[in-house]
């Protein structure tokens, strides 16, 4: 293997794939990056057995070949080089890679590439789903955080991806809240699919994916032929492949409230700020926040309002009142404020609506004004032990 490429390209490629380098694993080779000079490009791959990232870097290939190299050493060294041409050359004996520019050089010992896990490709799979990078990024941001982080119920550590009738839906939940969002799939020629059987993608995979997504472009989503892995191909130089979670996500549609008694709409910033204030006081008391929706007066002069109150045991209490448009009777409900601040932290529309049925039934938060967004965030309220 012998090639020359630009330091900037190589550094960016290495930084991208290093998201998938395993930091603690029983397989030493997983701390290495696989380098492959082929078809006029340098292919870089890393995997931690859950996520694999492959990225292609433009290069001038003098001799094709493959090796693996320790990720940290290679990445850190390349990062110290100035933005200019870098040469990579595999030494004739062993797996030593010579990395050099005009002034510096390093020899880095790697491991047999044959030991490197096979990173699946999408070849032979079903036609891909096509979605824009910006839509995918928004979906990940608005949904993935709702997944559970503990492994007690593995299905809740995943994000359900469902494609039906030209729309892609993501749903994630833990025991107490649920986030659902869907976007239109891009029509991209006959090769694109509009329907795909459900898959459960680990939430971590999607967080890692969000980190390596470029600013714009198109993402192709494919399931490998054995249905064990999902592959995201972004442009023609980046692929992320991930194992799936086995198991069945509960039928979340059943718990989406079908009606509402009371709806209050207010600027997102206002509610976010009020929730933040309440959360400071709720910290020491199990995040308990009382949320009161007050009806406006019939005179049209006194608007409706949302009143959030929290009590810090022995240290005082807080009440924040924010005006809002209230439709329906007043109501008081108790939430874990963390579930409110979580969702308010990811919503980008100027207004939000909170829809309630009763103090015992789940409440729903929806963005207002964002055309086409059908985001729903369902929170189970708390109630007293009595």
């Amino acid at each position, binding site marked *: 293997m012998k090639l020359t490429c630009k330091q900037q390209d190589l550094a960016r490629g290495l930084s991208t794939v290093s998201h998938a380098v395993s930091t603690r694993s029983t397989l030493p080779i997983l701390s290495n990056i696989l380098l492959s000079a082929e078809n006029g490009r340098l292919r870089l791959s890393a995997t931690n057995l859950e996520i694999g990232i492959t990225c292609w870097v433009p290069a001038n290939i003098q001799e094709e070949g493959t090796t693996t190299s320790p990720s940290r050493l290679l990445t850190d060294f390349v990062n110290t080089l100035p933005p200019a041409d870098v040469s990579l050359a595999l030494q004739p004996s062993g797996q030593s890679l010579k990395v050099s520019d005009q002034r510096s050089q390093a020899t880095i010992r790697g491991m047999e590439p044959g030991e490197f896990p096979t990173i699946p490709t999408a070849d032979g799979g079903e036609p891909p789903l096509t979605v824009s990078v910006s839509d995918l990024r928004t979906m990940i941001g608005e949904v993935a955080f709702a997944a559970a982080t503990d492994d007690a119920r593995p299905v809740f550590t995943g994000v359900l991806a469902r494609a039906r009738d030209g729309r892609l839906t993501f749903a994630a*939940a833990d*025991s*107490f*809240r*649920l986030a659902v969002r869907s976007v239109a799939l891009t029509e991209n020629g006959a090769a694109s699919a509009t329907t795909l059987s459900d898959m459960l993608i680990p939430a971590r995979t999607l967080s890692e994916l969000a980190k390596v997504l470029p600013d714009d472009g198109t993402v192709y989503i494919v399931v490998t032929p054995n249905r064990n892995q999902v592959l995201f191909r972004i442009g023609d130089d980046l692929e992320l492949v991930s194992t799936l979670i086995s198991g069945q996500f*509960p*039928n979340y549609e*059943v*718990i989406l409230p079908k009606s509402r008694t009371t709806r209050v709409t207010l600027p997102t910033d206002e509610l976010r700020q009020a929730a933040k204030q309440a959360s400071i006081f709720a910290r020491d*008391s*199990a*995040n*308990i926040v009382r949320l009161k929706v007050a009806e406006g007066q019939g005179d049209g002069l006194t608007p409706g309002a949302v009143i959030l109150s929290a009590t810090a*045991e022995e240290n005082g209490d807080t009440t924040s009142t924010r005006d809002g448009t209230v439709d329906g009777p007043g109501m008081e409900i*108790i939430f*874990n404020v963390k579930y409110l601040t979580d969702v308010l932290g990811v919503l980008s529309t100027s207004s939000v609506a909170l829809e309630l049925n009763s103090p015992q039934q*789940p409440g729903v938060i929806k963005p207002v004004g964002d055309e086409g967004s059908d985001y729903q965030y*369902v*929170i*189970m309220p*708390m*109630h*007293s*032990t*009595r």
Partner: protein
Amino acid sequence: MEIPAQGFRRVLHADLDCFFAAVEELDDPSLRGKPVIVGGDPDRRGVVSTANYVARRYGVASAMAAAQARRLCPQAIFLRPRFDRYRELSRRVMAILEDAVVALEQVSVDEVYGELPPGQPGCERAETIARRIKSRVYGETGLVISIGVGRNKSIAKLASDLSKPDGCLVVRPGQEETFLHPLPVGRLNGVGPHTRERLERLGLLTVGDLAARSLAELEAVLGKHGRWLWHLARGEDDRPVETEREPPKSISHENTYERDIADVERAAGHVRELALAVARRAASKSMIGRTITLKVKWSNFQILTRQQVLAAPTAEPEMLATAADRILRDQISPLLGGEHAIRLLGVALSGLASAHDAARTVWQVRAGHGMIQPSLWDVLAVERSIL
């Protein structure tokens, strides 16, 4: 004998004689005096539900294979049960009993326990009450009912059983020992053929023999069951007459097959169906259970049951099916073959709990500060117990 201040407890047990067969005779008087057997089809592996006393003289008994009953009594008239009609008459009988007792516990369509007002000086005698019930039942339905009265359920039941047919027996306070002790041990509730054999090997032939032993001895031989029998033998039984029907202790389905099953794969198909049926019924009752039992009756009529305790209660169809299948493959299949073919299969789910409660307790979190955070998924957990 000293009378306790609150009076003697008086429990009544009533049992309609040959109920199904009696209803048939009632509705078709031409059957009277002929052997009548109500139950399954003798050509298709049915089981005898009830035989009248004429048929019983030929040795026909309840729960016997119908085919065997026909061998014993070829001239018997076989009838398929008409449950709606039986239920209708049963309701009328129960209404009569309702008038006489302070609490009623219906055990089955033809069997009932009642709690009479406590026996005190000057109260109406148990015999009088029992005779009145009998004559009202006969007068209003044409059915014959046997009644036993005693100071607890076990004595009352023995009394009605022993006085059948058309029985009426009251075991008075203080007479319990005279009544119980001469009875063979097999009469006691809970002494099956197996236990009887063990007791007889120890020289315990009568209830009196049992009562003469120490509790420790019986416990050593039969464990907890021994304790229960020892109390029964001494006429002690404090089970209440329970008006409210308790939630079921188990949910089960079983089926007798037309042809014996010798092949594990065929059996597996049936076990799966049964398990799914149990799951359906459990779901309809919003119950979940923790113990799954597979019952097998071999072609030689021996019965074998094997159970497995699940890690968490469930009514999830696949989990029940898988558990039942595993029992079949691990514990039954090695015995299958040769003389051991399967005649009947049953699947039961026990250790039941309300899915609602269970879902709540498993999913909700005590948030502290007097607060509970219930789970969003309660509704689903109840539906499919995705615990």
